[in-house]
């Protein structure tokens, strides 16, 4: 019997809300949304954790410009606080080298991370999810029963193909879906809104394509002032965050 699994609930007990930022599709802005959401909430005075579960292509540390920090070992491992966020990522352990993991390894890494990370008291834990619907998604569903999902799409039909599959399975399993956020919109179109409406799920609004966003990558203070953040912040108001 894998003992590590049993302690996970205890590790997450003092976290008020857990929000997994997911999509099914890659490159839609999950990591940007997750990191920005964490920054936004921290700035509002909440106690916030951020867990990067994209183990192949971890991005949150790039977006937040995290460097030269390492978790403290104390009755487990304590995520370093960066820009007001308790931040946990596989990069602490990989030196950012390639990570050729198979599914079973992914699952074991997630179990280990959840079993040994001491988050303490948090208002929010934000999880930056990888694309797909594999071991990471299935394990978040299996081990983090109280996680809600915030789903990101772009305006494209290609993205919606993967996004709607994730939405269908979450809906079928009666997992709370905060709603769908449309990112990188360039022209006014109600394509995504209509599709989400027809699935009877909340459409949260859209974030415009931000031409200057790349300059804010790695610079949280700049990111806080970006158009991207402005759009996100407006949209968060709509869901009382």
């Amino acid at each position, binding site marked *: 019997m894998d003992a*590590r699994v049993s302690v996970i609930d205890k590790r997450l007990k003092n976290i008020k809300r857990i929000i997994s930022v997911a999509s099914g599709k890659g490159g839609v802005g999950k990591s940007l949304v997750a990191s920005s959401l964490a920054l936004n909430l921290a700035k509002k005075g909440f106690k916030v954790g951020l867990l990067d579960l994209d183990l192949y292509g971890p991005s949150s540390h790039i977006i937040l410009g995290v460097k030269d920090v390492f978790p403290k070992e104390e009755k487990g*491992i304590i995520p370093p606080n960066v820009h007001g966020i308790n931040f946990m990522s596989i990069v602490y352990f990989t030196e950012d*080298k390639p990570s050729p993991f198979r599914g079973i*390894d992914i699952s*074991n890494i997630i179990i280990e*991370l959840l*079993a040994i990370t001491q988050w303490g008291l948090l208002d929010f834990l934000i999880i930056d999810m990888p694309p797909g619907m594999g071991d990471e998604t299935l394990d978040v569903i299996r081990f983090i029963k109280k996680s809600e999902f915030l789903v990101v799409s772009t305006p494209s039909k290609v993205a919606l193909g993967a996004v709607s599959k994730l939405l269908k399975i979450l809906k079928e399993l009666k997992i709370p879906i905060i709603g769908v956020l449309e990112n990188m919109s360039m022209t006014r179109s109600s394509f995504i809104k209509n599709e989400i409406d027809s699935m009877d799920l909340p459409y949260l609004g859209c974030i415009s394509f931000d031409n200057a966003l790349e300059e804010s990558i790695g610079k949280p203070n700049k990111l806080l002032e970006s158009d991207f953040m402005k759009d996100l912040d407006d949209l968060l108001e709509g869901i009382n965050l």
Partner: protein
Amino acid sequence: MHEWALAESILVAAVEAAEKEKLKIISEIKISIGELQQIEQDIFEFALEEIIKTQGDKLKNVKTVIETEKSTLKCKNCEHTWDFSDMKKKLNEDESEAIHFIPEVAFVHARCPKCGSPDFEIMTGRGVSITSIKGER
């Protein structure tokens, strides 16, 4: 000292299992720790003792028996098998410590010693598990 978190997981799991089996008292827990976890056994035992003190009667007189599960690694490319002591020779301190926290980063820091592939399998030697529990109803 992240050993503490794993020790706690053992005790939480044991109490859970005891409740399922309707045991009033747990007299013995046999624990298997994968070699890749590189647990410091002293620290782990100390943690077990400290946590047991804070627990109720169920665990008061429990005996813990700790075994290390030897590691076997097997290459999917060339079928060569080896173990952690072979692997450790080529790891620096940081890499080895990273594997201590997350055994699967072995795939990041190590390769098949025969063919160089990162596509190997941890057949045995990872994780922390309970192999048996004794007690009284």
